[in-house]
Structures are given as structure tokens and as C-alpha cells.
């Protein structure tokens, strides 16, 4: 009787772990002759933006014949560090990190540096450690684009709400900086400025609260589309007419712009960030020198 149970357990475990591994083509990554293995540690794969980034990187890796290992940090800095350590133990040739946080990623970069593995950061930068290249959208320019668009649409005066991203994240800081620079000197007044942590559900609830508090709002600038779409639900439910501008141009947001629900969204090109990342990684591995900062272009999507 006991034996049966052991057998059932063994079988289930092998199914759970083994098959999952083989199913994804779990080849060994010693970095066979000529082929490079690149690790990609993504802050979260629960956000379509980073899924796009991963897809772009994967497509480029397939094209260039590199093998790519993608790990998800689930927005937790400790998990991120564990992921990088696991990649170091696997002996990958280069690690691309999309940090959960610019400060906390320092230990992870140090772990890779200690093993002599070059690091490239994507989207968010690292505040410490040796990074050969940082690839990101020009967020300040994007924030400015959004700000200028709102100024133009409102004719230079009105009340706006700024929904901020994760406090301290460089993307949130830079987008806010660009936006506020663009509206400075105009008659636009920011009546509320709150964080919704780049999250759609929080965008909804935070906006609901702001709508209760502010009788007059003409426009909303959200640091990302998830928050913009959350805010859109709140605005729709309130029946008020408020212009919303998002950032990232995710599929949902572009559809909302086409439907006239969102006024505009700043298009980052996450797939480009991923693919330029892999491209740069291959250059580094090939011994070429690359720029420390590689900005990726942005564009404004309107109806």
C-alpha cells in the first residue's frame, strides 16, 4: 500500500517538474560551440508590456541563433536576485535585466559582475554595478509629448490629474518629469497627483477617489496604459467627460484610442527594446563596443 503511494508521488512529481521542463525544450545550456546563451530577467510577465518586450527579444534571439532563457521576477526584488543567481549558476554568457527597482537590482548586477558575466539593463536602469549598456525608451521625451498634446487639446488651460507609476521607478520619475516640464508655464493646473503603481485595478480605485474629491477635471495623464484604462472605467462610471492620455500603447489602449475612449497614448516600442537588447547583447559577446545608453524611439498614437 505504501509502495503504491510512493510510486504515485514519484510519478506526479516527474510529471509536474520533468515534463514541464522537457516540454519547453529544456536543453542544457552549457553554451555549446558558437551558440551564445543569454539570460533575460523580466520584472513581471503579468503586464502585457513586458510580455511584448520578451517576445521582441525572443524573436531577435531566434533570428540571430542565440538561445534565450527568460525568468520572471514577479515584481519582487528578492526573486529577481534569485533569478540572476540561478542564471549565473547555469553559466549563461550574458544577462539582460529588466529591473523591478533601480536601487535593489544592485545586488543582482553585483552577483553577475562577480561571476564575470556582462549585464545589460532594459527599460529601467540600475543605480549601481557594472552595466555594459542600458536600453530604454526616452521616457522624458515621451512625457513631454503627452504634456504638449494635452496643452494643445485644452487650449493651454484646464485642470489635470496625474496618475503616477511605482514611486521611485525611473520610468515613473522620467515620464512625470517630461510631463510637468511640458505643462510648466501654461495655465494647466495639476489638481491631483497620486500613484496607482502602474496597475489597472489601482488606476480604477484611485481615480474613483479623485473623481469624488475633484468637481472639475479636464484631462488625465497616466504614466502607463494599465492605469489609464483603469481610470477610464472610473470616468465612464461617473458619466463625466474627461480626456485621458496613457503611455505604452498596449493593444488594449490602442483599441481604446481607436474607439475614442482614450484621447492618446504614447507608444513605446517594447518589442524594439527587447530586440535591440538581444542585438546589443550579441555585439557585446562578439567583442564590439556599444553605447552606454541606447534610447529607443517613441511616438504618439491618436485617433
Amino acid at each position, binding site marked *: 500500500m505504501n509502495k503504491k503511494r510512493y510510486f504515485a508521488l514519484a510519478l506526479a512529481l516527474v510529471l509536474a517538474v520533468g515534463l514541464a521542463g522537457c516540454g519547453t525544450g529544456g536543453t542544457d545550456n552549457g553554451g555549446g560551440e558558437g551558440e551564445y546563451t543569454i539570460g533575460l530577467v523580466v520584472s513581471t510577465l503579468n503586464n502585457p508590456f513586458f510580455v511584448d518586450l520578451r517576445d521582441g527579444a525572443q524573436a531577435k534571439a531566434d533570428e540571430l541563433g542565440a538561445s534565450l532563457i527568460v*525568468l520572471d521576477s514577479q515584481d519582487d526584488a528578492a526573486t529577481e536576485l534569485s533569478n540572476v543567481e540561478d542564471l549565473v*549558476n547555469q553559466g549563461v554568457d550574458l544577462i539582460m535585466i529588466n529591473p523591478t527597482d533601480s536601487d*535593489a537590482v544592485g545586488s543582482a548586477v553585483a552577483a553577475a559582475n562577480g561571476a564575470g558575466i556582462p549585464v545589460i539593463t532594459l527599460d529601467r536602469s540600475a543605480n549601481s554595478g557594472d552595466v555594459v549598456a542600458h536600453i530604454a525608451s526616452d521616457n522624458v521625451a515621451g512625457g513631454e509629448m503627452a504634456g504638449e498634446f494635452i496643452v494643445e487639446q485644452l487650449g493651454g488651460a484646464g485642470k489635470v490629474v496625474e496618475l503616477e507609476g511605482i514611486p521611485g521607478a525611473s520610468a515613473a520619475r522620467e515620464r512625470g518629469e517630461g510631463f510637468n516640464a511640458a505643462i510648466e508655464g501654461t495655465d494647466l493646473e495639476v489638481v491631483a497627483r497620486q500613484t496607482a503603481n502602474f496597475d489597472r485595478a489601482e488606476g480604477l480605485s484611485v481615480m474613483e477617489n479623485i473623481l469624488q474629491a475633484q468637481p472639475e477635471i479636464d484631462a488625465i495623464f497616466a504614466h502607463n496604459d494599465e492605469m489609464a484604462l483603469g481610470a477610464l472605467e472610473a470616468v465612464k462610471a461617473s458619466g463625466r467627460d474627461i480626456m485621458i492620455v496613457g503611455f505604452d500603447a498596449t493593444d488594449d489602449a490602442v483599441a481604446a484610442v481607436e474607439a475614442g475612449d482614450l484621447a492618446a497614448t504614447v507608444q513605446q516600442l517594447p518589442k524594439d527594446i527587447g530586440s535591440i537588447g538581444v542585438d546589443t547583447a550579441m555585439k557585446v559577446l562578439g567583442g564590439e563596443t556599444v553605447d552606454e545608453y541606447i534610447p529607443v524611439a517613441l511616438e504618439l498614437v491618436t485617433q
Partner: protein
Amino acid sequence: MGKFSLKGRNWKQFLSDNKPVVVLLILVVTMSFLSDRFLTWSNIITVLRQTSINAVIATGMTFAILIGGIDLSVGSVLAITGAIAASLVASGMNIILVVILTLLIGLGIGLLNGLLISKGRLQPFIATLGTMTLLRGLTLVYTQGRPISIFGSDTSAMFSKIGTGYFLGIPIPVYIMLVVFFISWYTLNHLKIGRYTYALGSNEEATMYSGIKTDNIKLFVYAVAGVLAALAGIIVTARLGSAQPTAGSGYELDAIAAVVIGGTSMAGGIGTIFGTAIGAMIIGILNNALNMLQVSSYYQDVAKGVVILIAVLLDRKQRKSR
């Protein structure tokens, strides 16, 4: 069987009493076949270090679950104590003082949980759900939502050694974990308060009628959980070199999983620190193994869920058949 019968029997008895060990062994053996990088010294060290944080929290959780309680606030305790420790280190305070002060804060929070549950007669789930939310909010207020870096004073490098340092080739957090295991094991098995803890979990009324002050045991148990969560907060902060306001979110669930995989009954009274240690190892190895096998992160949670359910189902069946 033959000539090994006696030895074999002991071995078998041990394994059938310790199902989690079987799960762990199968996991290790399977993995070493699937990846030649798995059973390397550096990877073993990595897994142990990664596991230490959850193991320390789970040890405290074991005390709470042994008396039939639960502590959901551990992740938030980790966050707020980590943040306070980081700012104290950055201010240049003596490291030993920082550690003592941080552990005392953990103790205070634990005692608060204990008071709410014993004197306040709140359900442990509700009481600690309350403090979990409260402390997460206080952490955001204290940090203003921004990470606090430990760097900027002379003692920063020394503090970060707690998380990143080595002694005789083994990471410091691993020693901390082992010391925590030992003290907890000794407390539960060789001290009066340990026996009372088991007694309270088996039968609260009987324990009360035998003249034991059950309120004091509850205070003690939640204080242990609070102190160990604070200790984990110190390790995480030292490892990362900064305290994240969102640190530790969901850690309570990993800790509960480790305790339950380790064979501790959620009803209380049954369970061991050894089981929890094995449970934490299983979760740690699973995380590491799934990364090594390049399992998509979406499937990782599926696999983890399956292993938790199997481990618990096996344990339950065994208990029933006894």
C-alpha cells in the same frame, strides 16, 4: 530484505514517518538527471541562501500553526522592520544595535498580535490580517513609497555582510537559518514552553484546565513569529542593499506552504521544525529547479501548486490510515 533487514526497516520507518523527505529526495534525484548544473556546489549554496529567508519566516509560522493559529502579518513585518533597519543603518548606527532594535520591533509587533488574539479574543486569521494590512500601510507611510538604501554610512558594508557575506565558504544567512532551526527545535522539544505549545494546539480546553496560562503561550508563540519575521527582514534588506516598500508581499503564503508541506497540521498540535525545514527546502529547490529547466514562469506556479497539493494529500492520507 535479507541481511539489511534491520537497517532497511529503520530507514523505511524514517521515510514513512517523514514523507516530506521522500518528496525532497525525489525532487533532488529527478533534477540531477535533468540538469547537470543542479548538483554543483555553487548551486547548492545558492539554493540554501535563497531558502534561508522563507525558512526563517516559516519557522515562526510553525509555532503559530502548532497552536492552531496563523500569522498572516509576517510579510508586512518583514517589510517594515527591513525599512526601519535600512534607515538606521544609513544613519550610521552601530550594526549590533540596529539588529537588536529591529528584532525588538518584531517582538513588539508579535506581542501585539498575541494580545489581539489572547486578550482581544480575535480569530488569529482576522487579527493578523488586520496587522498585515496596517503594517503594509505604515511601511508605505514610513518609506514614502520609495526604497530605502542602506548605503551612505561607514557601517553599510558591514550590515550588507549579514546577507551577502560568507564564513568558511558558506553564506551567513545559511548559518542564521541553522541557528534558528536549532533554537526552535530545542525550545519545542526540550523546554516546558515547547510542551505547552503542543498541548495548546492539541486541546486548548484541557490545557487551560490543567492550570497552564494559555494566554501567555499565545503571546510567546506570536512573539516568536514576529521576531523571526524581523530577522528575515534584516536578511532581505542586507541581501538587496535596500529595503523595498513592497518587500515580502505574499511571503506569508510561501511560509505557510513550507510548514504544511513539512507535515504540520493546520489544526494544531502536530508538526516539527525538521518538517518545516524540509518543506522550505522543497519550495526553494522547486523555484531553483524550475528556473534551471527553463519552465515558463506561468507554468512554475502550476507546478508549485501541484507539489503543495500532493505533499499535503499524502500526509493527510497517512494520518487517516493510522
